[in-house]
């Protein structure tokens, strides 16, 4: 057992590519937690997808032992937080589990919007923050400019920032010393009833569900009967351990300590991040504040390209959901796409990660329908209904009004591109809330409807700013607006998978863009095909795809029969990538591409 005064708990806040994982690796090496020869680059980002995208999705932690220059031994617990806005709640819980943060900023770049969100989370959690400037060995490094930038943008004193190069291993000792000297020790009462926060949980193929906790008060030991206060479930602890970063069994965890346990929990779904864990027999008086159940904000349909893969998709989704409590799903059937699932996600990145995993790890080709947000329909009778899928929109005569989710978007962009960014936000029905400048960069806050952001806002932002903008958002609430359901009719038949909710004032524009795009995406047929956008019975945009005019093999004799037949078979196989609507075949990519706005 380590005395509270010799424990330091911290997280690392950094923008993608600013060197969070590399620094974590160096801290593990410098403290001798893992022998150099066992060190795998960037230990903490285990999953392929995380590594590819340069982001950390599942929080991990590592317990380090460090003998400081004052000759005393300290336990340093690093919690590796998810770095993306979609996981803001998880981040907030991780932040509550530690007392301080290292703010790692690339000395050649400066602070980015996504960093800001996590810094604010850290400040909210009352953290002491130690700025760390990384990559100081790069020729482009400008430590003084970046220090000023940190002070301007965050308002954090950066004059004694630690200068390091995680890659080159420079300044790592200084970081460890700063952790010991500048971060506060945790507080807690060893003799109080057990009160621990559930920080994270994941599924391990050998151990089952592993739960990560931070003990606030009391002591937990192997064999203890514990209760999860939010779910009410009671378990016996089978195994108690710390992560170094491999699991190492540990006799007990006291106040300020971070570790993991297993308790024959069947599914990750049975655990809730932010839940309070206490002893069954001698519980604490009240749970920790701030618990929120996971709330999906973006929904889309996932359908197998090959209808025969439906069962495989269901199994894959069920498996994935076991390990991801924030992902929801229900069966959906579409006239166009057959059987699939309507899935809910914490945000767009979460959506992409889940879709990638389904396609990659489970080898299922998917059609993803346009992402939609959750609308609140207030019915004439006063009842409120959630609308997850525009195809389910009830008859308007029964609806009193519709509310949509709004976000507060924070965008950081070099001055040169500010005009384009403001125009983009304005076009997406944004309301400017704040605009400040700091060192050649603008920081702009917009109030935006989530449905305008959910599809291709980020892509557009990247393209108008040549990748120089960084973006973050937070959901702020619901607001009424003039929203309508726009249907798309192809050859006079409505295509449910293409229907969408739009603002009435934007409907013509979007409708025209959609039908023009579809006209390009749908191959010509033997007959002409009207493509229309409509609100209720009223057509607001129309294009006609003309009929094919000539498609005939000039020469076909005896020797060509086999070749021609095989060619025909090949063409028919190509048709499998199409979806049949009445007599019209729509290529799969049309379901997503048609919704991309070129603004």
């Amino acid at each position, binding site marked *: 057992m380590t005395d509270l005064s010799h424990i330091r708990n911290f997280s690392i806040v950094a923008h993608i590519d600013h060197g969070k994982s590399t620094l974590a690796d160096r801290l593990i090496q410098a403290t001798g937690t893992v022998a150099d020869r066992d060190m795998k680059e960037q230990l903490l980002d285990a999953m392929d997808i995380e590594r590819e995208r340069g982001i950390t999705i599942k929080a991990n932690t590592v317990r380090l032992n460090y003998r400081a220059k004052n000759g005393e031994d300290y336990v340093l617990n690093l919690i590796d937080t998810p770095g993306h806005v979609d996981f803001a709640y998880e981040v907030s819980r991780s932040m509550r589990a530690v007392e301080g943060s290292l703010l790692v900023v690339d000395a050649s770049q400066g602070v980015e919007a996504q960093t800001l969100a996590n810094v604010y989370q850290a400040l909210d959690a009352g953290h002491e923050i130690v700025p760390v400037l990384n990559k100081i060995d790069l020729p482009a490094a400008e430590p003084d400019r970046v220090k000023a930038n940190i002070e301007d943008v965050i308002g954090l004193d950066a004059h004694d920032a630690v200068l390091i190069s995680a890659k080159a291993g420079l300044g790592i000792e200084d970081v460890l010393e700063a952790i010991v000297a500048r971060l506060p020790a945790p507080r807690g009462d060893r003799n109080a009833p057990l009160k621990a926060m559930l920080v994270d949980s994941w599924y391990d193929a050998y151990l089952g569900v592993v739960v990560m906790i931070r003990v606030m008060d009391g002591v937990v030991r192997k064999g203890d009967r514990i209760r999860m206060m939010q779910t009410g479930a009671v378990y016996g602890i089978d195994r108690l351990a710390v992560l170094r970063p491999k699991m190492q069994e540990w006799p007990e965890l006291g106040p300020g300590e971070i570790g993991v346990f297993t308790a024959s929990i069947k599914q990750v779904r049975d655990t809730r991040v932010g839940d309070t864990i206490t002893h069954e027999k001698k519980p604490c008086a009240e749970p920790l504040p701030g618990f929120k159940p996971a709330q999906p904000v973006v929904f889309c349909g996932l359908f197998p390209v090959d209808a025969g893969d439906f069962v495989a998709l269901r199994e894959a989704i069920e498996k994935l959901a076991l390990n991801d409590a924030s992902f929801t799903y229900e069966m959906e059937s579409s006239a166009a796409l057959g059987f699939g699932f309507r899935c809910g996600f914490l945000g767009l990145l979460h959506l992409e990660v889940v879709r990638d995993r389904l396609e990659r790890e489970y080898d299922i080709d998917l059609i993803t329908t346009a992402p939609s947000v959750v609308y609140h329909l207030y019915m004439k009778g006063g009842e409120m209904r959630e609308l997850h899928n525009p195809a389910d929109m009830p008859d308007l005569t029964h609806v009193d009004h519709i509310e949509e989710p709004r976000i507060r978007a924070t965008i950081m962009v070099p001055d040169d591109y500010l005009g384009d960014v403001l125009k983009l936000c304005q076009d997406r029905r944004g309301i400017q809330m704040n605009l400040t400048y700091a060192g050649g960069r603008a920081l702009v806050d917009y109030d935006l409807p989530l449905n305008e952001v959910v599809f291709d806002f980020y892509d557009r932002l990247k393209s108008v700013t040549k990748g120089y903008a960084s973006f973050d958002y937070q959901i702020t609430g619901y607001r009424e607006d003039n929203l309508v359901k726009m249907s798309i009719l192809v050859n006079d038949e409505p295509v449910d998978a293409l229907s969408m909710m739009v603002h009435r004032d934007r409907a013509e524009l979007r409708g025209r863009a959609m039908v023009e795009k579809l006209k390009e995406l749908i191959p010509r047929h033997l007959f002409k095909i009207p493509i229309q956008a409509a609100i209720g019975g009223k057509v607001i945009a129309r294009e006609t795809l003309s009929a094919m005019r000539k498609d005939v093999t000039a*020469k076909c004799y005896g*020797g060509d029969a086999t070749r021609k037949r095989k060619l025909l078979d090949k063409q028919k*196989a190509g048709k499998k990538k199409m979806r049949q609507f009445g007599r019209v075949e729509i290529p799969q990519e049309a379901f997503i591409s048609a919704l991309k706005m070129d603004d």
Partner: protein
Amino acid sequence: MATLGDISQRDGASDARDNVTKPEGRPGPLNQINRDPVENWQRGGFGLYLHWPFCLSKCPYCDFNSHVAARIDQREWQDAYLAEIARAAGETGERVLASVYFGGGTPSLMDPELVAAILDAVRAGWRVVNDLEVTLEANPTSVEAGRFRGYAAAGVNRLSLGVQALDDRDLAALGRLHTAGEARAAFDLARATFSRVSFDLIYARQGQTPEAWRAELGEALTMAADHLSLYQLTIEPGTAFGTRHAAGRLPGLPDEDRAVALWDITQEMTGAAGMVAYEVSNHAVEGAEGRHNLVYWRGGDYLGIGPGAHGRLTLDGIRLATEAPRAPTAWLQAVRQGRGELPREALAAGDVLAERLMMGLRLAEGVTMAPGDLPPAVAARIDMLVSDGLMWRETGRFGVTATGRRLLDAVLREILADQGGSQPDSDI
């Protein structure tokens, strides 16, 4: 359509038996003619295709199995053709042959003696109809024209001339070795030598305007051929044109609108001249239709002999696809080893139907088929296409309309949409 029905009636006569020449010393079981459904004249009879794989040079648009060789031993080739004819006759000798077709390559590079020897062997191998059609493809150069008499003497009665264009610059662009003047002279000689003459033109060429095509086709129609094959230039992968096209170095090809305009001019002018299209690209005065190709298009049986030649043979109710090794030396070697043929493929019912429609719908007369012979889904889609004005249907027969014909490939994809692809090849 009525025309073709008439031809087959006339050719078939009221009793096929009257129309048969018995090869000497081979009595043959005549009663089998009626037993074998493929032998019926509705299907165009039974044909023999002979492939001569050599050309003096390779044309940049051609993807046929043709080769340029420094030296050709015509004796060696004669032995091989005769051996294959004997082998094929051993298997199908009881059938009645309606047509022989020398295709290539450039068959007009064959010695007339070689052609004569082959035709002698054919007559010895099968009973043939009285008016056996014997076609030979020829290039209209002066050298080859010198062999026309010899071919006629050997028994060739129909010449198919690869004129391709009546414009010297375009002929050069198409890689042809003759001039328009030579082509006209060769045509006149052919006309005087053979009872039936056809020639080919390639249109929708680089930079070809509708006016230019009108003028050229007008001239072609005055040349008094009884049969014209008018092909829109097709860029095939693996050809010189294909490579150039892929590299963006084949400018001036017609866009779809231009191609349609050229197509329409072709239909209009040939129709006015009494040479209506009886097939997608083939036009004839009444009664002069190429009977050999009708065998293919009507779904009849035909033998394919020579490098890369394909055949269709119905044996014991199973339709077999036959194919010979493509490379000339490989074929010769296979023949020396006793069989100039690759393993045969038994066609699944779906493949037979696909081929029947693919080939048969090329004809203006359409496909004759009992209503019950079509899968219901296929019949339903045909009805749909009838309502689109792309097909027509009457009792026991259906086809594509004039508009449908220039969309035939798309029409076929639609008709056969849910018909399974080929079954795994089963070798016999």
